[in-house]
C-alpha cells in the first residue's frame, strides 16, 4: 500500500535518508524502530508531502505521491499523530479532535462532531471534562493522547503514529497499544508506528523495520525479530551500549 523506493533526503550537510526502501502492506501494522535522529519522523513526513525527498519515489496504492492530483482527497485518507502532538493551542480540545469534522469535505453538524470527539477522547482514556479545556492546560501525556484522538477522529485508512506511547505511564501505554491494534484488526486500517518502546513493538507490530544510517537495516515479521541474527537489530532490541551501533552519533 505504501512503498518507498530509494528515497534520499539531506538537510544542509546532514544526509538523513540515504536510499530508503520499504513496503507496508494494506491492513497491516508496521513499526519502525531506530536510533534517535535517524530520520524516522522525516520518512513519515515524506509520505504526506510535508518534507519533499531529494530523490526517490513514494507510492501509495501504486500512485506516485509526487504526481500531483487532488491533495485534499489524498490527505483525507491519512491520520497523523505528531511526535510533539502539534495541537492547535487556539482551539479547545474537542475542536482539535474534531478539526476535520468541522470543516471541509467531511463537515458535520457541530453537535455530532462534538459527540464523535468525546467518543474518540474516551477511547484514548480521556474523560468528557477534558473536551472543553485548552491544550496548554493539559499534561504532556494528555496532549499526546488528544493528538492520537485527532489522528483517528475521521476514521482514516492509513494512520501514522509518531511515538504514541512516549511520556505515558505504563498502564496508559497498554491502553494505547491495544487501541492501535484494535484500529488495525477491527477497522482494517493500515498503521505505521514509530516507537522506542520494545514492549510496544511486540504489542502492535505485524512487521518491524529498523532504520539505521539512512537505510532499512532489517525488516520482517515481528516473530522473526529476535532470531534475525543481525547484530545491529540485536543490539537495539536489547538496549546494549556495546555493539556495532556507535553510541555517539
Amino acid at each position, binding site marked *: 500500500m505504501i512503498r518507498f523506493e530509494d528515497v534520499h533526503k539531506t538537510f544542509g550537510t546532514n544526509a538523513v535518508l540515504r536510499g530508503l526502501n520499504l513496503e507496508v502492506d494494506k491492513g497491516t501494522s508496521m513499526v519502525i524502530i531506530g536510533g534517535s535522529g535517524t530520520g524516522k519522523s522525516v520518512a513519515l*513526513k515524506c509520505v504526506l508531502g*510535508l518534507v519533499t525527498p531529494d530523490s526517490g519515489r513514494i507510492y501509495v496504492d501504486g500512485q506516485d505521491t509526487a504526481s500531483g492530483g487532488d491533495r485534499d482527497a489524498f490527505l483525507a485518507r491519512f*491520520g497523523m499523530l*505528531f511526535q*510533539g502532538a*502539534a495541537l492547535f493551542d487556539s482551539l479547545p480540545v474537542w475542536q482539535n479532535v474534531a478539526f476535520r469534522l468541522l470543516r471541509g469535505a467531511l463537515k458535520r453538524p457541530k453537535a455530532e462532531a462534538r459527540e464523535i470527539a468525546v467518543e474518540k477522547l474516551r477511547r484514548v482514556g480521556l474523560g468528557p471534562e477534558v473536551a472543553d479545556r485548552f491544550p496548554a492546560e493539559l499534561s504532556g501525556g494528555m496532549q499526546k493522547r488528544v493528538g492520537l484522538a485527532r489522528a483517528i477522529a475521521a476514521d482514516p485508512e492509513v494512520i501514522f503514529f509518531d511515538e504514541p506511547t512516549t511520556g505515558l505511564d505504563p498502564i496508559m501505554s497498554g491502553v494505547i497499544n491495544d487501541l492501535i491494534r484494535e484500529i488495525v484488526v477491527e477497522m482494517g486500517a493500515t498503521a505505521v508506528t514509530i516507537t522506542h518502546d520494545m514492549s510496544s513493538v511486540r504489542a502492535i507490530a505485524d512487521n518491524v523495520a529498523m532504520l539505521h544510517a539512512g537505510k532499512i537495516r532489517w525488516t520482517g515479521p515481528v516473530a522473526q525479530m529476535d532470531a534475525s541474527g543481525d547484530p545491529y537489530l540485536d543490539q537495539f532490541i536489547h538496549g546494549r551500549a556495546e555493539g556495532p551501533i556507535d553510541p555517539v552519533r
Partner: protein
Amino acid sequence: MSVIAHLLAGIGRRVLAALATIGRVVLFTARAFSHMLRPPFYGRELLNALLHIGWLSLPVVGMTAIFTGAALALQIYAGGSRFDAQAVVPQIVALGIVRELGPVLVGLMIAARVTSSIAAEIATMKVTEQIDALTTLSTHPMKYLVAPRVLAALICVPLLVGLGDIIGILGGYTVAVNNLDFNGAVYIRNTVDFLEPLDVISSLVKGAVFGVIAATMGCYAGMQSGRGAQGVGRATKSSVEAASVLILAANVALTGAFFSI
C-alpha cells in the same frame, strides 16, 4: 584591485538575495489574495482576525492619534507665531494628520501590535508542527491562517486610519480651544472647509496598503520561521522591521502618486 572586486561581489550577492526575498514576498502576497477569492472560506478565522486587528487596536490607535494631534497643534502654533500665522493651526493640523501622520502612525502602530503578534503566533505554530498538522488535516495554511488575517487588515486598517484622522484632529482641537484661545466652531469649520476629498481618499488608501503590508509581513515571517525559540524571536523582529520600513517607503510612493503634480 581584488579587494574592490571582492567588495563588489559581496554587494552583488546582497542585492541578489534582497531581490529574491522581494520576489518571494510579492509571490506570497499574490497567493494570499488568490486564496481570499477561492473557497473554502473560514468565516470564524476572519471574525477573529477582525477582532484582533481592528477592535482591539482601537485604544492604541486612539491614543496615538490624540497625542499626535495635540502636539502638532502646539508646534504649529509656536512656529506660526514667529511670522504671525497662528491662525493656520486648524488647516495645517488637518492636512498633516489626514495626509501623513494619521496613516503613517496608525500603520506603524499596527506594525508594532499586529505584525509582531501574527509573526510570533504563526512562527510558534510552525515550530511546534501545527502548520504541518493543519496540512495533514486537509486545511491549507495559506487559506486558514494567512488569507483571513490579510483580508481583515485590508478591511480594518483603513477604518482605523479614518478614525485616527478624526481623533487626531480632535486632539488638535482640544489643545487649540482650551490652551490657545481658538473658537471651537471656527476651528471645526476651517478644518472641514479646508480638507479636500482627495486628502481623505489618500488617507484611506494608505491605510489599506499599510494594513496589507503589516499583515502580510507578519504572516510571511512566521511561515518562514527557523526552528526553535530563536527562530520565533528572529521571525518576530524581522517582520516588524520589514513592515515598518515598507510602510514608510510605501508612504513616500503613495504621497508622490497622490499629490505630486
